[in-house]
């Protein structure tokens, strides 16, 4: 039964989810083309401290190889990808089908309410390695285009993959909570977009403004600093485990909420 649902989800969402995967490759290509020039002008950019803080931990490292080449893991578009990728199937089911009427057919088929949520989480979970593989490929593509591939430590870039996967897991749980509570896809999308945008803005403000770094800790993005992971300046394991745990807990809560709903 679960396999049938996974095949159904794959058939429905493979195109839109597949298109998302090109974002890290596009970012990687752009970064690869611009990286040599940006590095030449790093001193000029260092006079823009807010930009430096947004891009990296400090002005000196903002335009370093690692910082630039880690962009396919942490460009704003990629950060949004981490939230959008799980939301594509999850906001369509159960919220979308609840609004359209298809959920009645599925649950009466019969599909267990908890099993539905678990299958959705499993479907996204199976896609996470693909997303992070594309992010890694984006970084390698950037390094190749910039002529830096020989000089970077590829293994350290691979370390950025688990935190990225954990961040997607967190957004998966959040999307599930929103979807099981929403009446239809439109309301689920609006609510989820509000969550993601707020989290993104809070994290951006925490990066740019001085003295408010603590704000980032209230968003999933605050626990995700792949450039720091690559540089080895942050204990990434605790953050990744924390994000993944939050994702699992949110998924379990979503399954319970779906099971307890008065109306399917």
């Amino acid at each position, binding site marked *: 039964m679960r396999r049938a649902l996974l095949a159904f989800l794959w058939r429905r969402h493979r195109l839109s989810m597949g298109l998302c995967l090109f974002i890290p490759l596009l970012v990687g290509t752009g970064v690869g083309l611009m990286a040599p020039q940006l590095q030449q002008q790093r001193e000029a950019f260092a006079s823009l401290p807010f930009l430096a803080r947004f891009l990296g931990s400090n002005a000196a490292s903002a335009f370093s190889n690692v910082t630039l080449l880690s962009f396919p893991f942490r460009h704003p578009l990629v950060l949004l990808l981490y939230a959008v990728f799980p939301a594509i199937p999850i906001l369509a089911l159960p919220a979308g089908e609840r609004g359209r009427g298809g959920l009645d057919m599925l649950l009466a088929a019969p599909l267990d309410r908890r099993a539905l949520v678990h299958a959705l989480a499993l479907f996204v979970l199976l896609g996470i390695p693909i997303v992070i593989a594309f992010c890694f490929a984006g970084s390698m593509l950037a390094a190749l285009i910039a002529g830096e591939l020989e000089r970077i430590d590829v293994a350290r870039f691979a370390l950025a993959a688990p935190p990225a996967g954990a961040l997607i897991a967190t957004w998966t749980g959040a999307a599930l909570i929103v979807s099981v509570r929403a009446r239809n896809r439109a309301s689920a999308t609006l609510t989820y977009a509000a969550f993601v945008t707020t989290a993104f803005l809070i994290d951006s403000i925490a990066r740019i403004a001085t003295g408010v770094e603590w704000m980032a800790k209230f968003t999933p993005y605050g626990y995700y600093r792949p450039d720091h992971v690559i540089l080895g300046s942050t204990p990434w394991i605790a953050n990744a485990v924390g994000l993944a745990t939050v994702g699992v807990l949110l998924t379990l809560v979503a399954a319970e909420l779906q099971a307890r709903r008065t109306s*399917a």
Partner: protein
Amino acid sequence: MRTGYERKGIRTSVRYRSPVSAVIEITDLTVRFGDVTAVAGLNLSVESGEIFGFLGPNGAGKTTTIRTLVDLLRPTSGNVRVLGRDVRGGAAEQRAAIGFLPGDLALFPGLTGRETLAFFARLQRRPPRSREAVLDRLGLADEALGRKVSTYSTGMRQKIGITIAFQHDPQLLILDEPTSGLDPFVREAFLGLVREAPKRGATVFLSSHVLAEVESCADRIALVDGGELRLLESIDAMRRDRPRHVILRYADGREERRTHAGDPAALLATIDTTRLIDVEIRPAGLEDTVKAALQHGSER
């Protein structure tokens, strides 16, 4: 002794009981949406092998009741037991033994007809033994099954929905307005499927507001209105008891019109046969009985 139904003013010759053979047992079912009471203290029992017609005007609470039968809606109070178990969080085997057709059927537009049937067969966990026979009866061609359901007419979508409900030979069929969108020929074919279902041991719970259809196949009917049960009766009893319009014509040109319900022998005993030349007896339709029950309910 008056039955519980009679005390509530519900017309019935059936005593409410919880028989061992009951496939559906609804006890004091109440469903409220905020201030609106959609179903108010409904009690019903549907026995194995029965075709049970569930009637009522729009907004009567039919679909709400049906959604509670398949756990798509949880009651505010009361119990719903299907196939001997509480429907809430029912076991997979229990739920796989139900064939369900919702009133507002929503199929998945990206799938073809054939893929839709295969997908639901996998969810139903039972081999779709009757699929080909049902498709054949409903006249859904192989060519049409290869097309995406988004290209289907309403009637074709309904045929797919009916096939999903019947394909795995369920023990219980719960069908909400199953003939909407079907042409008269397909409707007749569908009613044939319904009539045959009890022969293989299935029970049918059929909701409709097309009274003639229900009359043609159901063993018993329940009529709900305003979320309350107004009538619970076997079709045979309704046919026997429904009023008859009687016209008596005499040789002197007199014409006497009467309405008689109940035992026909009692009617014959009251007729003055002196110079009687013609008797015309017209049975009232099921509609009259239903209208009378609804009127009775609204006057209470």
